[in-house]
């Protein structure tokens, strides 16, 4: 006699019913999650340290730092030079105006005396 499908399926449902996990399962999951978080934070810091611990990378980092310092110095020098040139231009303009005015005054004085 053939075993009915429905009966076999019911027996399978019974055999494969939900099993309770071992006691403390959830707590162990939370502990693992907490450990993983700490570990990943430590890993991030260690990776940075390891990155700079490589001799070649140290030289690269030092070189990059020098480039930044030289660049900053150059920028500052250029700004100062430009500021100086601007001041010089203003002084020259002021001198030219003063000179022109003095010339004008002198002409008026001479011409007036002549009149």
């Amino acid at each position, binding site marked *: *006699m*053939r*075993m*009915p*499908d429905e*009966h*076999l*399926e019911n*027996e*399978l*449902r*019974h*055999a*494969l*019913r*939900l*099993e*309770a*996990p*071992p006691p403390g*399962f*959830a707590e*162990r*999951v*939370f502990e*693992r*999650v907490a450990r*993983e978080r700490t570990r990943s934070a430590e890993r991030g810091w260690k990776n940075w340290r390891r990155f700079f611990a490589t001799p070649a990378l140290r030289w690269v980092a030092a070189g990059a730092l020098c480039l930044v310092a030289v660049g900053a110095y150059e920028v500052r020098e250029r700004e100062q030079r430009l500021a100086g040139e601007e001041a010089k231009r203003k002084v020259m303009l002021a001198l030219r105006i003063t000179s022109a005015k003095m010339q004008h005054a002198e002409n008026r004085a001479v011409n007036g005396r002549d009149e």
Partner: protein
Amino acid sequence: MADTLRAEALVACSMDFEELVREHQAMVFSLAYHFLQDRATAEEVAQDVFVQLHSRLGRLESPEHVKFWLRRTISHRSIDYLRRRKLRAETALEDAPEPVTPVAAGDPMLSRRLRQLVASLPERARMIVVLRYQEDMELAEIAKTMAIPVNTVRSHLHRSLALLREKVQRTLGSGIVAQGTK
């Protein structure tokens, strides 16, 4: 509007990790246990899945999505674990020892025997049977979870049931058949 709902769901999900673990621990553990047939290994694999869930919570959109993700991940992880450790089928279906005394329907011995027989199925067929009868999932849901065609699920299930029926009838005698047909 949809964005707001999604954002709310994400916040709710990330806030309720503990609740999610408590709600789904039996489902995840049982799927692994019925597939692997070892409590310690099942706990290890189930814990891995929950740790992974914690890091992916922000990407899961709803409680249904979480449940789907958990079922899919525990299925794949259990199969991968077995393949990696080569623990598969300590006893092949045909080689499984037969009990000496006949058992009746609903008997704990019948359940144990059925679990042994399920454990001796090939990996994919075994997971399909576990998802079908532990979780009462439809074939289409199983197909989506395992990322395989529905027809493959149907044929695996059909073959597995035929094998299990034959083996159960052969090993447990006519008592079970008589009770089952009442």
